[in-house]
């Protein structure tokens, strides 16, 4: 059995970076799932007697201004932040993939309309579109995810469209049409599988980017609100205590970096394994 997926998997496992990234990521996800078992403290439980303790044996990462255990908060924060990344990318895919499919498959007016919309969205650089959406919807964590997802969707639409444009010229598409398949069936069953590889690569790298963007919105006060232990919100809480409690800022940031770095390592490995042409 030498299916393309199997070959890609073998290539992926040969990449040291991807294996390292994947291992760290599995570890982070397991820790997030098992969070209540890994700490004796509650993420929201205040303990005024233990305020602002530096890292020590009882509180591995110290405590915050309300005496809450930072390790517990960062650990429970991983539940929120990892989910935020996944949900944002899912929203981006749900919006972007159909846009790219329709645009590439039907061409002409449909294509022009959708691509104009995509271009318009890309006129707002980086996080600006997300800021506009949050300004309209109002600041909270779900709106932040929605904003990050919507503003990432044009990239997926473009990549899917490009893949569809080349895939629809294949002989098997003509064959499918000849035996009487409907447009919808051709799109979903015969063309969409071609977009799987680039979507897996972009989606993986996108989760890392989404975690950072959502954390940035929370940091600015436009996403998760205290006392929610989302990583960006934790950093925002630590901002005012930088002078007296460096650990409140340092560890949530390291958590974001570890998560995003491992996702990026895995994503780079996936790109090299699945689609060498995507290498920038």
């Amino acid at each position: 059995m030498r299916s393309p997926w199997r070959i890609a998997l073998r290539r992926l496992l040969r990449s040291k970076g991807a294996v390292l990234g994947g291992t760290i990521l599995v570890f982070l996800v397991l820790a997030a799932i098992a969070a209540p078992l890994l700490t004796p403290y509650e993420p929201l439980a205040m303990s005024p007697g233990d305020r602002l303790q530096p890292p020590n044996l009882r509180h591995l990462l110290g405590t915050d201004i309300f005496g809450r255990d930072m390790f517990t908060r960062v650990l429970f924060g991983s539940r929120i932040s990892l989910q935020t990344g996944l949900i944002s990318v899912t929203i981006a895919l749900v919006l972007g993939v159909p846009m790219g499919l329709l645009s590439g498959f039907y061409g002409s007016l449909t294509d022009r309309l959708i691509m104009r919309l995509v271009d318009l969205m890309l006129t707002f650089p980086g996080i600006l579109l997300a800021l506009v959406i949050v300004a309209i919807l109002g600041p909270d964590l779900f709106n932040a995810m929605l904003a990050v997802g919507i503003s990432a969707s044009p990239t997926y639409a473009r990549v899917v469209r490009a893949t569809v444009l080349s895939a629809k010229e294949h002989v098997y598409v003509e064959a499918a049409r000849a035996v009487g398949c409907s447009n919808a069936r051709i799109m979903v069953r015969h063309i969409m599988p071609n977009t799987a590889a680039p979507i897996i690569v972009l989606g993986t790298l996108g989760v890392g980017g989404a975690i950072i963007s959502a954390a940035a919105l929370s940091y600015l006060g436009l996403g998760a609100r205290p006392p929610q232990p989302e990583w960006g919100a934790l950093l925002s809480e630590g901002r005012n205590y930088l002078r007296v409690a460096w650990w409140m800022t340092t560890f949530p940031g390291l958590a974001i970096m570890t998560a995003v770095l491992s996702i990026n390592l895995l994503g780079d490995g996936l790109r090299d394994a699945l689609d060498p042409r995507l290498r920038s």
Partner: protein
Amino acid sequence: MLQYIARRLLLAIPTMLVVSVVVFLMLHLVPGDPAIVFFGDQPVTPERLEMVRRQMGLHRPLVVQYLGYVGGIFRGDLGTSIHHRTPVAEEVLSRIPSSAELALAAFIVAVALGLGLGLLSALKRGTWIDATAMLAALGGVSMPIFWLSAMLIFVFSLKLRWFPATGFGGWDRLVLPAAALGFISSATLARLVRSSVLEVLWQPFVTTARSKGLREAVVIRRHVLKNAFIAVITVMGLQFGTLLSGAVITETVFARPGVGKLLVDAILNKDFPIVQGAVLFIALVYIIINLLVDVSYAYLDPRIRFD
């Protein structure tokens, strides 16, 4: 060439118009009555609400309202801030020097670091130098800028007391934010420079240049870098977008009175006229930068002009 510039300029006009429509509609997309949105969190009597509705022209058709808004833009009138009761255009204009200073300084840092790291790791491919440079670049992609900024403040202003942590004015207040924003923006650039240099490095014309006895430095400068640069310029345009949005966050962390901080504060205060003005301004700057990138691209690569 002139013809190409003219064509690109013409193409930018519809984009700018559509951006103005989006910015105008923002106020109307907010769930609820725009007049109530206008007052933000302040309590308000029904009479006063009705008066504001008249003043804002909310009773008129949307198209008429939009034309009024665009007309205002051309006269330099972007409305009035709810929070400060000052003209929005004035607020935005007064914030430009701080943002421009940061953007320029960070851009220089980003290009210097990106080119340096990328070139170095391409020329020393496979060595520990290559590995270290690419690890730094990967770190730059994976690090949240607000965290890097906070760490820089902790080390260089709170502990070592080398630079002030916040504010605008003087080069010492510029060093930390420019370093943070520049480093984050350099990461993608470094990776791209590396791959485009590697691509060019083994082309026949480079071998020819070497075999005719040119010094390695000249080969790199005149034959490798020049060709690798075209790909780099495009990304620099895109990177400028990253830089603009990074600036929004950097300005907030370092409390710099720039357009980005103005925007974030306005969103938090629900000061919609300011939000609209700042978004409009940042989007226009981005469109203009991309226009310049396209033009310089065509200048560097004649094939594009005759497309």
